């Protein structure tokens, strides 16, 4: 699985990454032979259902989970072999935003201290300087520093807590942020605010983003390219507009079809007998999607489909891609 839409200047390059872990004596194939590139300044969306390995992939990029094999190159440096101080330094350039904004903030610490923590770890010794940086970044995410710094997380709503998490991720001025379902826990009206904020911060801080979510419409709203993941493998990747207009992988098409459309004239298509994803403990042979795929035949059970070019910049891992 080599071919990818290779951006000329990738900030992040994931090569043949494999992450497996053992649960109750059984091996979970969380990420199987995944390769991805993210160009400097690009947002790559990563979509898939729960348990498809998208969060594990995000964590493996940050080396929060040990990969069995494969490489993660960040700005030319190989992270998988990096240890100790060098890894810690590199991690300052890569930050993570989690799904549950309230659970990701320590309930006993004041907002000012929570946002300053990365600075303390990075060795910014001057408290006045830290204070100034925290205050600046809080203002950037739309909070009033004077009002919020002394308060505790429980005094804030989910949307505001997510703003605080974003401020904490930005305070070290990173190059790359992994957003793991950053808006799934938020209400529709707040979701749009946070998505807009992420876009604004991206251009203001010159960020590159890996945006992980299960909601295709949310992913499309912010991503330049989208990768679709199913049971540990990438099944399709391509420019957002193109991927949604002309999905080549039947799984991508299924995901698009399943989105409820806010229009009563569009009668929801009776969902075909698609069932549920099989367990990543015993993924199907060949193409992992074949057990739910209307087009699957013997070849799909026998051969793992490679990612192949189906259109400019668009790649699908399917023996029988949609025309």
């Amino acid at each position, binding site marked *: 699985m080599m071919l990818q839409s290779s951006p000329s200047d990738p900030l992040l390059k994931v090569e043949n990454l494999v992450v497996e872990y053992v649960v109750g004596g059984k091996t979970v194939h969380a990420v199987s032979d995944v390769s991805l590139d993210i160009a400097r300044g690009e947002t790559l969306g990563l979509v898939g259902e729960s348990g498809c390995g998208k969060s594990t992939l995000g964590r493996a990029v940050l080396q929060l989970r040990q990969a069995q094999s494969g490489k993660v190159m960040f700005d030319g440096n190989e992270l998988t072999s990096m240890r100790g101080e060098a890894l810690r330094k590199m991690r300052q350039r890569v930050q993570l935003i989690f799904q549950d904004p309230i659970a990701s903030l320590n309930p006993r610490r004041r907002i000012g201290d929570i946002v300053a923590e990365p600075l303390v770890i990075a060795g910014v010794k001057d408290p006045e300087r830290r204070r100034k940086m925290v205050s600046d970044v809080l203002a950037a995410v739309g909070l009033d520093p004077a009002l919020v710094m002394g308060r505790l997380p429980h005094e804030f709503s989910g949307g505001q807590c997510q703003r605080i998490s974003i401020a904490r991720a930005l305070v070290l001025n990173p190059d790359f942020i992994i957003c793991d379902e950053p808006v799934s826990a938020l209400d529709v009206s*707040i979701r749009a605010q946070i998505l807009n904020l992420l876009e604004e911060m991206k251009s203001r801080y010159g960020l590159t983003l890996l945006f992980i979510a299960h909601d295709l419409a949310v992913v499309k709203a912010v991503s330049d390219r989208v990768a679709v993941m199913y049971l540990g493998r990438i099944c399709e990747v391509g420019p957002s507009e193109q991927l949604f207009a002309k999905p080549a992988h039947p799984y991508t098409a299924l995901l698009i079809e399943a989105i409820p459309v806010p229009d*009563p004239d*569009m009668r929801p298509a009776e969902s075909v007998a698609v069932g549920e994803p099989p367990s990543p403990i015993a993924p199907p042979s060949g193409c992992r999607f074949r057990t739910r795929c209307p087009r699957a035949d013997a070849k799909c059970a026998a051969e793992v489909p490679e990612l192949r070019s189906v259109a400019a910049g668009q790649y699908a891992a399917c023996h029988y891609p949609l025309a």
Partner: protein
Amino acid sequence: MTGNVLLSVEDVVVDLPTPRGNLRAVDRVNLEVQAGQTLGVVGESGCGKTMLSRAILQLLPKKAKLGGRVMFDGQDLVSLDRESLRKLRGRSLAVVFQDPMTSLNPVLTIGTQLIETLQEHLELDLAAARKRSVELLAAVGIPAPEQRLTQYPHQLSGGMRQRVAIAIALSCEPKLLIADEPTTALDVTIQAQILDLLAREQQRRHMAMILITHDLGVVAGRTDEVAVMYAGRVVERAPTPALFKKMRMPYTEALLAAIPKLDTAPHTVLPAISGRPPDPTRPIKGCSFSPRCRYAVARCHGEKPELTEAETPAHQYACFHPIETPAAVPA
């Protein structure tokens, strides 16, 4: 609205005492559901939609104060005694909650939970209840239903658990099913399957349904009528096609606009609703949505709009400056 009204919620008020003062979770809500029809109740977290469903089910927290009437199938549920209520709930009034893991008992098998319900309400013997359970699990699309009877909830996926919860809810042929965010915890492909299942069973059983959700997309294709709630009140109510054709309440419009759409280009700025819903322990004098509304004028901040009839039949909205009328242009 005429027809065979099964449920009628009349001036329902729910007050919850909190350390910060009284919280009015539901504020004078009026709704009807006709037999065999689906009502969608849409709103964000904290808008009172779940408290409203609990008021209908008479499952409010102990300290809550309930006002108004809930007429169901000719009886006022508010004045019904505990024993009659217990007989009614699960029998002709059923509910499916958001998280199937918390609504199913983790230490009882699927079979025990289904069979218990059937024996309790329908007085079936064990063999008949068992047979019926297998039929129900098959009807909600669970493969190998016989074997599932001996399994525990944790052995099933989230989607399968929700199917079991639906099977239990449907087991006694209820007249009304309240589905409170039944798909919010599920993946989008599973969500579509569960919504299809609910729609299919509803039609087959000629059952009425209240579908509670925060997603206007979910109600669009699957309900007959929609009530939009904001800060404890119904702010717009209409037959589903009429609502989507011509929504009058700015909140409904804003809620719809804020959903990312597949047909807009990436990096388009989303029309977000600024601010957030008001603190329910600090009631606002005027329209509750006025602090966030782009059409609001002085009157909106000082006076509460009541639900008024729109020119389209059965369409009501609570707004002084509804969308797309001359009055919407502030002087």
